């Protein structure tokens, strides 16, 4: 079937967006546009352009996500894949080949998930299971600032290319291991352990979804979300290590980041709460244990978020609802148990609040509810699906979603880097590379390989 080109609706122009505003009201947003618009990215330097990263992680998203953070900010990231490519390349929803992206020249296919993370990265192949492959890695490491790997615990060490050995070759190297549960400890990772293992192991899955009484069950994130959080925290650790190296010590170090622990770090108050009175965080669906109103509930044409916990917003929400429902006055505003912010958090009070709000929402579609609540400056908005995200006017205007023309894969729609910045913004230089596309460039440039080297190593299946 023929697919309409993106965007289906043209992107707004600044004149339209700021029409009717006074010069004073326009001034600040236009100042921000002048320093942040992504169109100007290539007129600016890159924050990490002096760093070289070897990303040797395979199969798992966490390492790829981590190196994406660094490559969006300008680091030269070399993705080291086994000959034949990272198995992650072959992942495609429901195994559907027709959803894969095909290299125009070689016909090699790659899944959308891998493609989306293969941004600004070079692809080389190297077989680390061979002695010679490992010797080549050692030579590459002397040229690198950062190495990322996710081998089974101890594997690289026993191969003679672990942190303990590589730091001898390059004392400035920041060596980062990433995984699900860790490379040491009773639950250390096994080969093939992937997200959502981390999601289940950290308490996230148990806490997500509706309570059992409402027909719910523990729920995973649709995404390999723990890998995204873990990969971001790995990037944080790597950059801190680089800063310390260059500012103070001159020395690299060993960083370990796991998807599970990164999520444990951000699981709100679960641990302190448990330690205070033995509470086990229950599932609470699309409501929040600690804020009322702050929830997603069904509305006329989908699902609607409305939020406003403290008094100023609380009364504005009820003013909006009260315009259409006379009972708000007595049932909500007249209830002494709903007067104090903290009192509204009791479960019964949440049920009461959302029952009333739900009545109103069932007559209001997302856009209508948002329009009414926005008049009162209340945070609200519908749950958007991918097609709606891709076409959302604000996102298109700011370039949260964009299309790139890849020399290999044609036009690809993608989520742009959120690293907007005045002087050294993140950016997309290219999306996707066929397996081993940069072998010639990287091995010649860094290791001085000759035609004969390439021929011999290819035959020996080392690269």
């Amino acid at each position, binding site marked *: 079937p023929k697919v309409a080109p*993106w965007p289906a609706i043209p992107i707004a122009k600044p004149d339209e967006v700021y029409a009717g505003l006074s010069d004073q009201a326009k001034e600040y*947003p*236009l*100042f*921000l546009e002048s320093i942040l618009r992504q169109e100007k990215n290539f007129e600016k330097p890159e*924050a990490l352009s002096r760093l070289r990263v070897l990303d040797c992680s395979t199969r798992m998203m966490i390492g790829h996500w981590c190196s994406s953070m660094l490559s969006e900010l300008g680091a030269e990231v070399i993705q080291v894949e086994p000959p034949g490519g990272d198995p992650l390349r072959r992942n495609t*929803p429901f195994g559907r080949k027709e959803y894969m992206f095909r290299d125009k020249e070689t016909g090699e296919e790659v899944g*959308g998930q891998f493609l989306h993370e293969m941004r600004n990265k070079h692809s080389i192949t190297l077989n680390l299971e061979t002695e010679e492959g490992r010797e080549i890695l050692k030579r590459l490491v002397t040229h690198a600032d950062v190495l990322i790997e996710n081998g089974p615990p101890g594997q690289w060490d026993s191969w003679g290319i672990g942190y*303990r050995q590589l730091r001898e070759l390059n004392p400035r190297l920041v060596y980062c291991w990433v995984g699900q549960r860790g*490379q040491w400890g009773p639950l250390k990772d*096994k080969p093939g352990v992937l997200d959502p293992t981390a999601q289940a192991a*950290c*308490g*996230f*899955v148990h806490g*997500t979804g509706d309570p059992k009484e409402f027909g719910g069950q*523990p*729920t*995973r*994130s*649709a*995404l390999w*979300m723990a890998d*995204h959080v873990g990969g971001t*925290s790995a990037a*944080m650790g790597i*950059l801190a*290590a*680089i800063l310390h190296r*260059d500012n103070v010590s001159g020395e690299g170090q*060993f960083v370990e980041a796991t998807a599970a*622990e*990164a999520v444990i770090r*951000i699981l709100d108050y679960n641990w*302190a709460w448990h330690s205070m009175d033995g509470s086990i*965080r229950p599932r609470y669906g699309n409501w929040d*244990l600690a804020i009322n109103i*702050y929830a*997603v509930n069904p509305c006329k044409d989908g*699902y609607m*978020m409305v*939020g406003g*916990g403290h008094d100023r917003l609380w009364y504005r929400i009820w003013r909006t609802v009260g315009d259409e429902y006379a009972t708000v006055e007595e049932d909500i505003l007249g209830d002494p148990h709903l007067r104090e912010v903290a009192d509204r958090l009791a479960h019964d009070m949440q049920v009461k609040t959302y029952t009333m709000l739900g009545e109103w929402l069932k007559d209001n579609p997302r856009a209508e509810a948002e329009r009414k609540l*926005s008049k009162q400056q*209340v*945070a609200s*908005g519908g749950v958007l*699906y*991918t097609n709606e*995200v*891709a076409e959302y006017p604000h996102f298109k205007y700011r370039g*949260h979603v964009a299309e790139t023309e890849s020399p290999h894969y044609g036009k690809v*729609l993608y*989520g742009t880097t959120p690293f*907007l*910045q*005045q*002087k*050294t913004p*993140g950016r997309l230089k290219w999306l996707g590379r066929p397996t081993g596309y940069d072998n010639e460039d990287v091995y010649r440039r860094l290791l001085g390989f000759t035609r004969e080297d390439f021929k011999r190593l290819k035959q020996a299946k080392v690269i």
Partner: protein
Amino acid sequence: MAKEATTKQATSFEQFCQETFDFKKAFGKPEALKGYRVLSCTQYILGPSCASYMGELGAEVIKIEAPRRGEAMRHTTPFNEPFLYPLSKWIPERGTGLGFLGANPNEYFISVDFHRPEGQAILKKLAAKSDVMVENYRPGTFDRWGIGYRQLREINPRLVYCWLGGFGGWGPGRVRASYDILGQAQGGNFGATGKPEFMGGAPAKHTIWLADYWGGMMGAVQILAALYWRDKISGEGTFIEYSQVHGVTRQLEYALPLYGRHGVTRERWGNWDTQLCVHGIIKCGKSSYPNSDNPQEQEEGYILISAYDDGDFAKLSKVVGDGKFAEKYAKHDVRVKPQSQMEIYPWLEKWAADKTKEQVAEILEKAGINNQPVWNSKEVANHPHWQQRGAVQWLDDPSFGDLLHQGPAYKMSHTPPRVKWALKPVGTDNEYILGKLAGLSSEELRRLEEQECI
């Protein structure tokens, strides 16, 4: 020296890691961001957590709140039950809610009213001596008050100014307020999570304040990169704008490429995986704690089974034992189809119907099949793996005593991030920080305090 090297090589890798990453030894090691000063004019989670990650790395983070009651997040706590007392020396009868915890470790807490010229003058003095400013008021507010990026960069051109928020300060939606849950809802990960409609499901929120806490990490990554560029290359500060809804859209994996090429919208797929099978969470029929009086423990167990490689699936078939799908679904490209998944997972749940999650885990473990029981927060908090690694750790908090606290998100051998304290009452460090950095005498401090300017 040579001798030491030999002993080190003789240590097993696991032992080496245990020693290298021992969180109890963190305080004997230097801090990566020692000497950096971060101002945090933030509330809720997104901005505060961003600054706190730098606090874990040793930066001096100064959190500035509204006098007396502090920021809004102190007044949130699950079901209005647990609080840490006192809220401040002025309001000892109230406490800080646990919503605040986790987003503000290791920070110095001062209170300043930015609405008043005197408060603004104090902030300028602090900004002149700081490396980073993290702020999340509505876009343009600080600019209007004369303490935004444009004014502060005149005072301190080396300042890295990071604004974090929902939709960003420009574009058609710039006036919209946002919270974590709205970032999830509109960014796109909410609509993709949960069971599909035809299975009786609806979009599901990620239980954590994900777009906030993880968004804060994204902000911190960008700040660290900007500091690197400043210190190593340019000497100049910069302005960062992080929109959490933009961040969420960035993490949609194949959804946008798929939509762009084929016009297909990614559908929810519950607890299974769209790309790998078997790689999903199933229900085990029996509760692990049938006699518990806590409903969280009474309910049935759940477990992730991961056997997507053909070899592992063959093993799994053998474990289940009825030989039903061994041949039919021997190949991954057949197994991963939606219709196949809809047969395979119920088949596994039927097999697990008379077992607890621990029993299923034990059987799979013996067969060499990857699995992970779905643990609740009690099971995680008490698991030796997480305790040994310091993912959760007992903290002797100087203000509040013993607390079980989350450890930092990652580990470092030479400059480990660490937790020093969870939080402090509002305004605790007024005297220390404002005396040191703003030159206020104790008389001035007293006067400002009486006027509720600090």
